[in-house]
């Protein structure tokens, strides 16, 4: 089968709308197709990755733990835009620690989150075959 570069672009906050959750569902299903997958988080999309989400009082399912499982699906490139974090008063420490086991490096645990600046994010976007936006 052809291998294409797929980018999933997340620009929306979680819970207020369903796009973040249904984007994640596409990423999980897409993983079975063995494409070259990247996920981008910019603008309000960076809010999806914050630590400590607790939806108990709004009756909506907390799907944020699923991001930590992405490594098991070989989804290991999560690009997060530095300018988007800064504008929202966030640092890398506010985000979940998401890791994967690198099978080419004796299963060493490595970080999946790659902080990039805006120009680098534009480069990532311009390097794709298929861009799906949520």
């Amino acid at each position, binding site marked *: 089968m052809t291998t294409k570069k797929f980018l999933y672009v997340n620009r929306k906050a979680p*819970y*207020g*709308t*369903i796009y973040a959750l249904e984007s994640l569902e596409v990423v999980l299903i897409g993983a079975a197709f063995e494409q070259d997958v990247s996920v981008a988080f910019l603008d309000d999309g960076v809010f999806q990755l914050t630590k400590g989400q607790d939806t108990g009082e*709004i*009756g*909506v*399912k907390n799907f944020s733990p699923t991001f930590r499982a992405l490594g098991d699906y070989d989804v290991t490139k999560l690009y997060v835009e530095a300018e988007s974090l800064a504008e929202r008063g966030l640092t890398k420490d506010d985000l979940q620690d998401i890791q994967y086991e690198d099978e080419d490096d004796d299963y060493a645990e490595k970080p999946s989150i790659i902080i990039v600046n805006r120009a680098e994010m534009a480069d990532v976007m311009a390097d794709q075959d298929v861009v799906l936006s949520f």
Partner: protein
Amino acid sequence: MKFGVVVSEGPYTHQAADSAYLFVKAALDNGHEVPRVFFYHDGVNVATRLSVPPQDERNIQENWTALAKDHDVDLVVCIAAAQRRGMLDENEARRQGKTADNIAEGFRISGLGQLIEMGIQTDRLVTFGD
């Protein structure tokens, strides 16, 4: 105090239907009355009984149906908005020659006049939307 509530967005896609539900529950729990909730725009889609959410998620329609039953809340679905979006009760389905209907128990289809009437007859009106 009497509260009227408008829900303007569909279930699951926007948080509006969840927020409205929690607001209405809190209002009732705190001694207020909520005689009617009006579903407009995509809010009419909350009323479908055909929804099958994942097992580990809330069922928004069932929550509303139960609330209506327990507290005698009139859940009104706007007929004009519902027709565009394919929400029909048994009567409407027959009248329009459609082969199925999909409105859940506890909801009823009626006109926009019910929204205005709610605005007139309640002390406060709150809209949850997008």
